[in-house]
């Protein structure tokens, strides 16, 4: 039997049982759509998180004071901070040729006031390089020009204190000091839990004085290129060790390592969720098998007739297997369509999600559906091919 004829034969048979076919195809559609949508959601979440890391900047190396290490039993449970990371340490790091620029960071909380309005906000002490390192942009003015008493406001803080007025050149009070507003950050700078709209940036020395602490919260350094990141890490360790009396007492994290860790976690999570969804596909596959077993039993006489007309075993097998695979494929296509639709519609309600099912997920779902059709269709098809024609024709 030619393939096209076999296909037509299968299609006619499915059409003759359209109610049953529709139910099975629906089950397969739901199963496939489940796998596709969950895979897409997982993947979109992964893209969102890695996107957040990318938004931090390029090829960043983050230096934190102190180092977690297990020491000889309690107390202390965790290794303690041996030395503060200082502004001088930061300056020294710039000597590494692998470091393009860096921003020392001091963080604290303070009350910011203009006129009668005041507001408790996060205060970040840093340098002008903070802007390019973190890839932020300004809405107005300049970010921390080389003057003592200047500040930059986050977008929310700015509107809270100044409404629609331009704050440039006005003086605000941070803690007990006065600062001239030199710049306003563009809004939207949300990253890793720090809302940059809700902060005030001061020159790092001013912030140190304000909080009365010489230690830095962290240093964010930007390597000259992706390849230079490892060199930068080595240099940072070497320089800090030399400055800290031979003690390597800082923690160095690279943006890549952080980002790839999360990437790996979310990838595993996506696969796990897709695997759970695949169980419904398995159930749909068993339904296909059930329907085919029933079909073979009901169509014994037809199988006997086909054999009498000279169909060989492989023809009978491919006819019944064809029906199972056809049903699975119809369900698979339906599921892919529904999944793709969902992945286009849902992002309208959750803009953080990237629309569009990834190609690999669509291909994988299609493959799984095809394989399940073949796997669950084979046993009934073999049973049909093995029927004894005499008995099959005799029974009514």
């Amino acid at each position: 039997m030619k393939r096209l004829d076999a296909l037509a034969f299968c299609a006619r048979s499915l059409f003759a049982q359209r109610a049953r076919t529709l139910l099975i195809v629906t089950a397969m559609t739901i199963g496939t759509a489940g796998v596709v949508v969950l895979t897409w959601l997982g993947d979109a979440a992964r893209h969102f998180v890695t996107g957040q890391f990318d938004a931090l900047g390029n090829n960043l190396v983050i230096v934190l004071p102190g180092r977690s290490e297990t020491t000889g039993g309690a107390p202390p449970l965790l290794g303690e901070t041996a030395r503060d990371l200082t502004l001088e340490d930061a300056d020294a790091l710039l000597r590494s040729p692998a470091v393009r620029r860096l921003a020392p960071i001091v963080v604290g909380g303070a009350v910011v006031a203009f006129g009668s309005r005041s507001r408790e906000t996060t205060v970040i002490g840093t340098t002008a390089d903070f802007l390019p390192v973190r890839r932020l942009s300004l809405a107005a003015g300049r970010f921390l020009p080389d003057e003592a008493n200047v500040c930059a406001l986050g977008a929310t803080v700015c509107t809270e204190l100044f409404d629609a007025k331009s704050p440039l050149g006005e003086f605000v009070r941070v803690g007990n000091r006065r600062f001239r507003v030199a710049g306003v950050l563009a809004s939207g700078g949300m990253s890793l839990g720090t809302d940059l709209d809700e902060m005030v940036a001061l020159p790092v020395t001013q912030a140190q004085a304000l909080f009365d602490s010489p230690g830095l919260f962290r240093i964010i350094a930007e390597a000259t290129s992706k390849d230079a990141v490892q060199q930068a890490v080595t240099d940072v360790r070497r320089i800090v060790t030399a400055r800290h009396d031979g003690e390597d007492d800082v923690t160095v994290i690279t943006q890549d390592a952080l980002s790839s860790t999360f990437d790996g976690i979310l990838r595993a999570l996506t696969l796990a969720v897709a695997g759970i969804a695949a169980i419904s596909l398995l159930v749909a596959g068993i339904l296909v098998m059930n329907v085919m077993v029933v079909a073979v039993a009901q169509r014994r006489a037809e199988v006997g007739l086909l054999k009498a007309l000279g169909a060989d075993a492989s023809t009978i097998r491919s006819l019944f297997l064809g029906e199972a695979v056809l049903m699975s494929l119809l369900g698979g296509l339906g599921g892919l369509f529904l999944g793709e639709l969902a992945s286009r519609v849902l992002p309208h309600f959750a803009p953080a999600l990237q629309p569009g099912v990834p190609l690999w997920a669509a291909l994988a779902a299609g493959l799984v559906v095809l394989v399940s059709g073949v796997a669950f269709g084979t046993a009934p098809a073999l049973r049909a091919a093995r029927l004894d024609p005499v008995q099959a024709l005799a029974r009514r």
Partner: protein
Amino acid sequence: MIELQKVCRVFTVGGQAVHALRDVDLRVGRGEYLSLMGPSGSGKSTLLNVLGLLDRPTSGTYRFLGDDVTALDDDAQAKVRRLRIGFVFQTFHLVPRLTTAQNVALPLVLAEVPPAERQARVEAQLRAFGLLERSHHRPDELSGGQRQRTAIARATITRPELLLADEPTGNLDRATGADVVRVLENLHDEGITLLVVTHDQELGARAHRRLRMDDGRLVADVGHGLGDRRATEAT
């Protein structure tokens, strides 16, 4: 054309051996018209199934068109059925979801005849069997006589040498039964070898050579070598 030598067929039913065929010897020439009669359980259907390659003898040899077909594997036997043997059943065995034309085309589809040629042959066949205006009807829209005509048209569209009919008029009233018999005899006149299994004495008596079975043995073979000129020529 058909040569059976000491063919036996033993079934095991409930641990007991049932001899459906006992040492059946039979030679049939090309173009003969035979009837096969006998009481229920005498082995008629088993003999028909063996001749049609739907069943294998337990022992003995079956030569069909000169070849020992008992030695063939299932797929090779299927090919012989596909090209050389037609079946007509008491209950028609039409595929309910297919139209008359599609049912008649089925053997050609299995034989991988290209669609254009297929269509032409099916149309010619339907015209010859007076079914042209019913070609797009499904079996449940046909009368009993039309169903059996469709089944015969299907059985003969590959122009087989041998046509095996198992109680072809068993489910039909007298008038349509006679009509179906005419169709079968016309095919015989055109040269096909026709074997009819029947309980109907009148139908059985029409055949040129009349076989009778009882308890798995051929007990009568009347008209052998007399009835049909072509038979003697061919053997």
